[in-house]
């Protein structure tokens, strides 16, 4: 199971712009590197990231082999209502990880 770290405010004012930071452990093997025997190491990367705010998609990213290991993504949204921010990473070899945090909007 991949480790993920989420930094999002637990509380926000309605209409406030909030910053969300996500970090996940992943090797992001490019597929272009040879191993000790000269054969290329097969590609193994995260390909998609989706953030949903109370079920509605607010941010999506496609990731490619040039993205560094342990991808760190930060983005912002407007705090509209209390609820859940959910995060989903999917990738090669059936990789899938999910996280969620709660936010209270006053």
């Amino acid at each position, binding site marked *: 199971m991949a*480790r993920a*770290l*989420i930094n999002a405010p637990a509380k926000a004012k309605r209409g406030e712009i909030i910053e969300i930071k996500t*970090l996940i*452990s992943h090797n992001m093997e490019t597929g272009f590197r040879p191993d000790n025997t000269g054969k290329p190491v097969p590609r193994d990367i995260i390909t998609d990231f989706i953030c949903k705010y109370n079920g509605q998609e607010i941010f999506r990213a496609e990731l490619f082999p040039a993205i560094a290991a*342990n991808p760190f993504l930060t983005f912002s949204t407007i705090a509209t209502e209390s609820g859940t921010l959910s995060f989903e990473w999917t990738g090669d070899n059936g990789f899938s990880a999910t996280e969620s945090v709660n936010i209270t909007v006053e």
Partner: protein
Amino acid sequence: MRPGAAVVFAAAVLGTTATAGEIPLADRKSGYEFMARETRAMQDDDTANPGMLWVLDGETLWKRNEGSAAKSCADCHGDARASMKGVAARYPAFNAARGRPVDLEERINICRTEQQQSTPLPFESKELLALAAYVGQQSRGMPIEIADDERTKPFLQAGHELFTQRQGQLNLSCAQCHDDNWGQKLAGAAIPQGHPTGYPLYRLEWQTLGSLQRRLRNCLFGMRAISYPFGAPEYVDLELYLMWRARGLPVETPAVRP
């Protein structure tokens, strides 16, 4: 110089604080000070510092039963936040059974083989780095304090000799960069003073966490010298000397470096 005179000279250098070439204690600063603002921000924010991913893994491993003794680290040491506080700031430390200093990774493996009756974790394995990062993080902010006594003195001297010895095809010593030319640039990169304050640390170039021994191998490779195998006593002597040289600086584990 006669070989005997060289030993006496090294002893004299270690015995005093401000000899020519050595950085005065007041001017010693961590590699953090030489980093770009963005890299500092990455280290300072625990949710942006990738080293924290290893710390979290280490916390899980700390509580996991291992080996034929089916014991976890926590069974002997309890809560690491209390029992491991300050430990990494004193390592490498003298180990009486081995008759020489051991570094933190070696100490973890001694526990694994002798207490948990398990196999030692390979150098640079994710598990060993995770445990070292978790133990190291408990000393974050505490000043590095290496024992400078009769038992460690010969090893401190050996480390100091390695540090000042020219080697490799470029015929360079560690001291020529890190004592004499710190603050200058080597190609585009700043030359730091070479204080191992944050190991194991996340190096952006490596895209992973790595130990001080891995970093020392990097330097040796850059000098086009032959590197020692992982776990070689030469590395531990050098680690001991470098930590003694960094005494007083706060532990930053897990640090981030470019």
